[in-house]
């Protein structure tokens, strides 16, 4: 019951935050120069006043701002995210079309980066003062500092052009006619390169964080006690050091998980991965207000959900922590 009450309370707080985010985003996007009509006029190569006025009337952009905000909030109350100006389709449908691709990519990258990062961090903490520890630190710094966009292009060049091992772009082999297991294998094949690239940056962070946290916990008195009691080193590492060292990593992972969904836009762009990050970026450059706001709201909602999940994971990692 405590857990359920906690979740309910956090979700209510989340809803209030989402409402505030919705209003703030509404005002912010309209502060940027240009509107959907401007963009479509620019792309058509032949706009006149009538054309622009038609577009503005079609998108209700000719109405006063408070009226537009009221319409938007009324739609939200009905769980209606509106219609995309540009794509002329319901925003919710467009987001739901793209969300699975992003969740697949970011989920895979998240798990890989966490698993590899923690493993490398743990190993590095046991190799302090050796060349192995230095190598991991240097690699972590390298992957942290290297721009993701550049790394992605380099990966495409090496693994898709020079060594044609992996696909250069896309989610699946278009026109390949794959079905069932073959289709999933094909998607998996396309997933390898973008997942590896996206996970490098986060793996570097988790590796460094885990190493530092492990070293800090390992110097604590209770660990010395455990060793003094004659417990095997492996058991001390897993049951005593790692378990306690994971808390800051869990905090960071929870924050990163939410950010990853919207922040995968660079990877989605380079690999033409049809995810929500790209949808958001396209909506921004096209000033597709309703799609932009809908995407912001959904990614914010995911961030709220991930925060709640993170808090729940804490209690699994450390039973001493109470939900309150």
């Amino acid at each position, binding site marked *: 019951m405590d857990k359920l009450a906690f979740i309910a309370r956090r979700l209510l707080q989340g809803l209030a935050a989402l409402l505030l985010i919705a209003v703030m985003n509404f005002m912010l996007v309209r502060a940027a120069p240009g509107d959907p009509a401007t963009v*479509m006029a620019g792309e*058509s190569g032949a706009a006149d006043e009538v054309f622009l006025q038609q577009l503005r009337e079609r998108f209700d952009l000719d109405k006063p701002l408070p009226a537009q905000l009221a319409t938007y909030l009324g739609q939200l109350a009905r769980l209606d995210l509106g219609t995309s100006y540009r*794509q002329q389709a319901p925003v919710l449908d467009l987001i739901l079309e793209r969300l699975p691709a992003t969740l697949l990519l970011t989920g895979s990258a998240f798990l890989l980066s966490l698993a590899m990062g923690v493993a490398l961090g743990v190993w590095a903490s046991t190799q302090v003062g050796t060349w192995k520890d230095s190598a991991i630190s240097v690699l972590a710094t390298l992957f942290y500092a290297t721009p993701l966009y550049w790394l992605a292009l380099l990966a495409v060049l090496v693994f898709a052009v020079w060594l044609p091992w992996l696909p250069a772009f896309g989610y699946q082999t278009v026109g390949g006619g794959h079905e069932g297991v073959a289709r999933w294998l094909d998607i998996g094949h396309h997933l390898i390169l973008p997942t590896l690239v996206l996970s490098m940056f986060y793996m570097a962070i988790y590796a460094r964080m885990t190493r530092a946290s492990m070293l800090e916990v390992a110097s604590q008195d209770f660990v010395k006690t455990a060793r003094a009691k004659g417990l095997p080193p492996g058991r001390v590492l897993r049951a005593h050091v790692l378990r306690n060292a994971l808390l800051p990593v869990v905090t960071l992972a929870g924050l990163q998980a939410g950010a990853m969904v919207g922040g995968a836009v660079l990877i989605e762009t380079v*690999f*033409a991965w049809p995810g929500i990050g790209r949808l958001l970026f396209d909506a921004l450059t096209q000033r597709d207000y309703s799609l932009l706001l809908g995407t912001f709201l959904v990614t914010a909602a995911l961030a709220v959900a991930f925060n709640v999940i993170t808090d729940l994971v804490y209690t699994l990692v450390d039973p001493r922590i109470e939900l309150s």
Partner: protein
Amino acid sequence: MHINRRTAIAHSAAIMGWLAAGIPITAAAQQKKVLNIALFPEPNSLVAGAGSTGPAQTVVGNLYDCLLRFDENLKAQPQLATEWSTSADQLTYTFQLKKGVKWHDGKPFTADDVVFTFDKFLRHYQPRVRIAMGSVESVKAVDPHTVVFKLHTPFPAFLTLMDASSSPIVPRHQLADADLTKPLTVPPVGTGPFKLKEWQRGAFIHLEKNTDYHMAGLPAIDNVYWHIIPDAASRAAAFESGKVDVLPGGTAEYFDVARLAKLPGVEVTTKGWEKFSPFAWLWMNHRNPLFQNLKLRQAVLHAIDRPAMAKVIWHGYATPATGPFNQRTPFYTSKTTQYPRDTAKARKLLEEAGYKGETIRLLPLPFGETWTRMAEMVRLNLTQAGFKVETVSADLPGTISRQSNWDFDLTFTFVYQSGDPAVGVARSYVSSEINKGSPFNNVGGYSNPKVDELFAQGAREPNPTRRAALYAEVQAILADDAVAGWLLELNFPTVYRTKVTNLVSSAVGINDSLGRASIN
């Protein structure tokens, strides 16, 4: 006859081998011809008219046929219209329509569809058609396969609007009752060589062959996949990795085009842009007192090194401009005042203009790396001539917004001159097109009643010789007045694999050519 096991196995293997050898041949014969093309940005809609963006028109033109096509010499060719005639006074245009043409949903194409397209549908959606229909008194279906347009004023450019660049023909039975003020959510139904099979937003558009196409034996390609790839470097990599067969003009950076052109089995063509005649120049904001000074405007023109820009930034895929008309635009004349690069002269003119070092804001076009470098080169050239220039950055909507609201001193633009000065040039220089809210009208704000009159006469004059004289005069005036910083006549090279043949067969290129292309 006794056949032992070993013999049976050997014979069976031989038979299987023979069969297996045959299978690839059979499979090859049955293998579908597939063309993969890169596309960006993603179209907003594939319904003709509603799909108004450049990329949308690239796809739409292969879904919807038009009355005419234009070859590379801008000569009209039949498509849905088999014959056409113009009355001696150029006030009546009669089109005979092809019989037996069907829409993708099987319904018959008739003259009523053409009437609906021009009189209602495109009049609403297409600014160029809307302007042209201002000259039209009536458009009527005389019989199911004859359409007559009656004009109240001659408009010699009228026929140039009858192709994929302006007027795809739409089905009356599908759209007659549609509320054109609301988003159109119907599927695209055309008479073109391809039908829409699937559109996975953010990923690809799949067109399949229209097996009932009205031209026997066409299309030769079974499936076309348009891959939505947002990043230019990724598009180049996709081509190089073999997953994409065609990079249409504008989808690859010029330094990539130069590199990809050297690969085996790759060809590059600059054909397919004759109707568009893309032209890049610098708008000078005539509302700014600095640019009201002729000598200062002349100084801008003399400062810029167009040949170097064409060679270095555009890798040779551009031609230095010589005046306000692209050389491929009808009625172009070279007999206008020229402004070759002369930094010393530019400095002298600047001094004579009384320039005191005021900062000039230069607004580039955010269309990719080539345009960024072009802006940097212009800034450098102007600085060398003594101008003080500050580059102002904005994304695409921000840039369009600034241009539309005249919030700039110098800004880049590139426009299509669309095959006739009345359609694609006049709007850039006439006073009636000085209106906020559009980046494609007279953004610079230049106003000259003589120029207005010449363009108006040119639009109505039926005699080609007199028309040429009118446009020659207007070009001379615009050049003398140094109205804008004309830069380059652009080429947008299409990069494609040698196995693709007849890829470009009209003056609008891939936009309506895929029905005639084939793959070896």
